[in-house]
């Protein structure tokens, strides 16, 4: 697969601007109802991993999912409409921001039960293996999820059966309000792979090129039948757990430090230095993305609400 660094930049920027809009709408308007959870600062993980995936590859996501969806090619309009609770959304308003499934792009499950998606990823990977298909599953979860029993059961089984799954642990330093030191004695969550006889790799999750390389290597390992890899992406969530989190537990200096490690600014600087990107070209990219976000908002805004009784549909076939 040929790496297009400009596409990586575009992908990260799309996630950033999309989620900035979500935060703004959530805080300042009545358009978005309920919880809002964004991944600002962590975009390189979604974009870098997403760039190695083919349409047939599967993503199992979690409560911080917008980046994963966009990086897999989900339609921003349908995501926005779902978050608005409109009938035109990916899931007709039944999921909202927290559980969006986009089977059209093989994001087959977004679960907010922490660690709940990890055994499901074993199942989707098993199906690829069973049908001898050349595709992989990526399961995204946080550092906190690796404390769940489901993580351990799933990694053990995936490794035992050499299944084509990449366990992408986004260590964003906080599990709720707990710092990593407060919820585990393990310094690197990737070390937990040792217990299951699979490779565990620590990667700078704010360096999208390293994210991409690591995911490509793990994918090749999956496709050669050697089995799963656990990759710990060390990153940081600039915001709180959700937009209503006051972040009392997050030191301001720490946030400022990580903002200097912004994955978008890092790649942008590299591309300008390499002469691949000019300021004008960057501005054009910004404009296109902002316009697409505005179009998504307009689409969601103008879309019809579901009828109350539509709630009774889609339970059984």
């Amino acid at each position, binding site marked *: 697969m040929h790496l297009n660094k400009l596409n990586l930049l575009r992908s990260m920027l799309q996630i950033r601007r999309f989620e900035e809009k979500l935060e703004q709408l959530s805080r300042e308007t009545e358009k978005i109802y309920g919880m809002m959870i964004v991944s600002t600062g962590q975009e390189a993980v979604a974009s870098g991993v997403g760039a190695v995936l083919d349409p047939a590859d599967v993503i199992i996501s979690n409560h911080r999912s917008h980046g994963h969806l966009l990086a897999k090619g989900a339609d921003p309009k349908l995501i926005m409409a779902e978050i608005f609770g409109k009938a035109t959304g990916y899931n007709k308003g039944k999921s909202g921001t927290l559980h969006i499934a986009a089977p059209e792009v093989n994001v087959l499950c977004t679960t907010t039960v922490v660690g709940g998606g990890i055994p499901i990823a074993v199942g989707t990977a098993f199906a690829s293996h069973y*049908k001898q298909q050349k595709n992989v599953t990526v399961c995204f979860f946080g550092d906190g999820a690796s404390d769940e029993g489901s993580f351990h059961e799933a990694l053990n089984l995936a490794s035992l059966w050499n299944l084509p799954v990449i366990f992408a642990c986004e260590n964003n330093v906080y599990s709720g309000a707990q710092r990593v030191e407060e919820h585990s004695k393990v310094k690197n969550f990737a070390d937990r792979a040792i217990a299951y006889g699979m490779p565990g790799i620590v990667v700078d999750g704010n360096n999208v090129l390293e994210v991409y390389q690591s995911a490509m290597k793990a994918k090749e390992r999956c496709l050669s039948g050697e089995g799963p890899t656990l990759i710990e992406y060390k990153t940081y969530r600039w915001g709180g757990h959700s937009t209503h989190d006051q972040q009392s537990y997050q030191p301001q200096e720490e946030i400022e430090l990580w903002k200097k490690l912004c994955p978008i600014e890092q790649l942008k600087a590299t591309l300008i230095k390499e002469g691949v990107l000019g300021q004008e070209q960057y501005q054009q990219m910004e404009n296109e993305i902002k316009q697409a976000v505005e179009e998504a908002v307009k689409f969601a805004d103008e879309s019809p609400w579901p009828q109350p009784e539509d709630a009774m549909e*889609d339970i059984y076939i």
Partner: protein
Amino acid sequence: MQNLTLGEAVKQALREEMLRDENVFVAGEGIGVGIHNNPKLPTHGLLEEFGPERVKDTPVSEAAIAGLAVGASVMGLRPVVEIMFNPFFTIASDQIINHAAKLRYLSGGKSKFPLVVRIKTGAGIGAGCQHSHNLEAWVAHCPGLKVVMPGTPADAKGLLKTAIRDDNPVIFIEDMILNFIPMPVPEEDYTIPLGPADIKKPGDDVTVVTWSKMLGTALNAAGKLEQQGISVEVVDLRTLAPLDEDTILKSVRKTGRLLVLHEATRTGGFGGEIAALVAEKAFNQLKAPVKRITAPDIPVPYSKPMEQFYIPNEDNVINGIKSILG
């Protein structure tokens, strides 16, 4: 007609469905090479016939087993996974209750999860309360699941085949005592729809609604009462979800009396749902209060006299029926 135990009938259904559809696979703890090398058990011999790619012995990991089924089914396979004992279901319950039951709804009807979770259940095996605990009310309470509890081997075969072919997640609960009682089972390939109850014995004076192993208890009690001139109609629900309200209501409207019989404990048990249904929709036809015969609200005790005390028996049913005949 062949005589099979419920376990053997389940095995026949599994085998025939695996031959019919290569997307069907089975997985669970000890289902290939088990500690009990007993041909009466439901998965005995499948590994030898279908091989390790389709008969997956798993580690002792109930959450992973259930997650395997959820993930494999959304990709188009038809997993039939086994939870060895009903109490162990609690470890798999996140996958079943939060995921299998809800993910189709959360997808807005775009995805489907055609999986079957077979759960072995029932008291009377001397294994105590962490191996014996009927939890069907837990799953019947969750929209998105279908819940099947056969009371005969013949029903088990036809219902399991339908469950495997169904595009919804199905919880299929097998009472282990029925694995040791051979009964006639048709040899041909047949299915039984999920939903309709079956009137196992028609009668006029009182309706007994029951399911699973308690069907036998109900029929034995009904046979004895028949000799005393009391005509009992025995309605075997077979599936708790979907629930065949019409058959229950029609029978109660005819007899005017209802006794609900289940092995699960009383409080919050599914019998309460049947009683409420009849109270809402057939109250005026009732000639007597609704009666529930269930296990008492205690864990399943180990010692045989206490364990037998726990399981509702014929005498309990006979006395219960007489108490509402007035």
